[in-house]
């Protein structure tokens, strides 16, 4: 139990490796769907419709679109990965090989969260690459771009852990993803600028946490800022939320929620 790899506990590194290999070895399942979906998004919304829309906040529509699509891909993959991995392991009971091992609850949670966040980051990079085929991509604020991507992928991976522990059947995962996550992301200003909304809906939109995530990543890429909340404040709030949800995951694992009888 005391043996370590790369200066890290061996148990944690093993679980992390297992989790990453699970999706890396299935590129058709992991990388092909976001690749194809985003080629379609960029072609239809960016190129075909984009020419009619013109510029938004001083940039072409396709460039405006790119950060939102990166956020959409990164957070849905982070969430889906951790929720699926935990739920599938519970459904088939093989998660017991992990939960009956001498890994600490913190190490178990961190391995699930960080491996899923890594998947989100990889998909974000993939989508950026797809965007670069259609338009020239600039990164105005690399620090904010990296910081926002890391924080939101960790946040959604941690939320996915809660979802994976809560789910009682596969349709719970579908409900969480399709009816909760996707609408929030779509109304989070991926495809439009909040400035085009009537005043009431502009302020209603500010209650949607996705707005700050899309806005933050857009700030990283384009330097453009569509809402009054500065990237620093948004980053602090999102980081706090990510830490809080990871802490919640650890408490749930410790209590055995969804894992023990």
């Amino acid at each position, binding site marked *: 139990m005391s043996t370590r790899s790369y200066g890290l506990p061996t148990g944690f590194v093993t679980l992390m490796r297992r989790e990453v290999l699970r999706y890396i070895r299935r590129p058709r399942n992991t990388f092909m769907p976001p690749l194809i979906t985003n080629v379609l998004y960029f072609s239809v919304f960016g190129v075909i419709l984009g020419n009619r829309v013109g510029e938004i906040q001083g940039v072409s529509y396709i460039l405006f679109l790119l950060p939102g699509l990166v956020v959409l891909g990164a957070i849905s993959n982070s969430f889906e990965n951790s929720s699926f991995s935990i739920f599938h392991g519970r459904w088939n009971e093989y998660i017991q*090989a992990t939960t009956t091992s001498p*890994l600490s609850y913190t190490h178990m949670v961190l391995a699930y969260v960080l491996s899923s966040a890594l998947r989100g980051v990889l998909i974000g990079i993939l989508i950026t690459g797809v965007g670069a085929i259609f338009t020239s991509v600039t990164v105005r604020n690399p620090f904010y771009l990296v910081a926002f991507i890391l924080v939101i992928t960790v946040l959604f991976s941690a939320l996915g852990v809660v979802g994976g522990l809560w789910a009682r059947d596969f349709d719970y995962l579908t409900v969480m993803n399709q009816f909760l996550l996707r609408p929030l992301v779509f109304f989070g200003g991926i495809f439009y600028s909040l400035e085009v909304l009537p005043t009431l809906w502009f302020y209603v939109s500010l209650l949607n946490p996705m707005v700050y995530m899309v806005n933050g990543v857009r700030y990283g890429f384009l330097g453009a800022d569509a809402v009054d909340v500065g990237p620093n404040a948004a980053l602090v709030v999102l980081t706090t939320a990510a830490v809080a949800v990871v802490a919640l995951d650890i408490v749930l694992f410790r209590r055995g929620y969804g894992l023990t009888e």
Partner: protein
Amino acid sequence: MSAIETEDLRKRYGDLQALKGVSLEVDEGEFFGLLGPNGAGKTTFINILVGLVKKSGGEARVFGYDVEDDYREARDAIGLAPQEFNVDRFFPIREVLVHKAGYHGVPKDVAEERADEALRTVGIYDKRDTRFHWLSGGMKRRFMLARAMVTDPDLLILDEPTAGVDVQLRHDLWEIITRMNEEGTTVLLTTHYIEEAERLCDRVGILDEGEVVEVSSPDELMSRGTDTVRVTLAGEIDAVPSALNGKVNGGADADGYEARVEDGELVVETRNAGATLAEVMRALDDAGHDVVDVEMSRTSLEEIFVEVTRDHGDVTRAPEGDA
């Protein structure tokens, strides 16, 4: 030191009290069998030790480590082969073993050697690159044992390890488990095959309706049963020979026996057939009877098991019946 020590261990599922205060001690290096009918609480007991079930009350320690407060140390000592197949579907079986050893802190290169060794021991090394799903039923059972041993546990817990396997495989698995026990691994075995417990275990505990009703060695248990000796004499008899009369009405007390005539044969019931037989033969010989044939049957552990659990069931159900 005790390998397992529980005090007043309780588990409640809603209205069902699955464990009603189990106090049990398994010594280090012992081969201990946990017997009991379906639903007796055997799997619940095991799952509390490994952390799959949260206890409702009482204490449980593995090598002195509390299973909740010192869960890492307790779990590190345990290798578990559960009754249900619960194996990672995404990876070939060798990799599944490497992961399991890794979770226990074994570095990757050592874990790979251990995985190969475990697969060779259970005889499925040539299937190392196959996923669990594609193994035959017997190979799946072999793999469950390999996964339990890959972490080199001090306590091996086997929950019905030979359920549904053929005789040859059962003997193979017994051989492996016995060897591990001889090398110092404590073994806790649950089984429905009484013969398995009789052959392998130093002691057995009988669990019924969430309570320990008996802890004893298989020999001790069997000595409590009644053996039967059937003696065929030359010529049919219709009464117990007078040489044995002194014992007839006294019943089968601790040292005695009870004799009767059945179908013209002398039937003697005793606690210890070996000792009784000589005495009976001598008495018959002295009385001038010619013995033609002797048949002796010993009580099986299975019969004792049924008796013990039935008696316990009668006792625990009685108040409900009276109400």
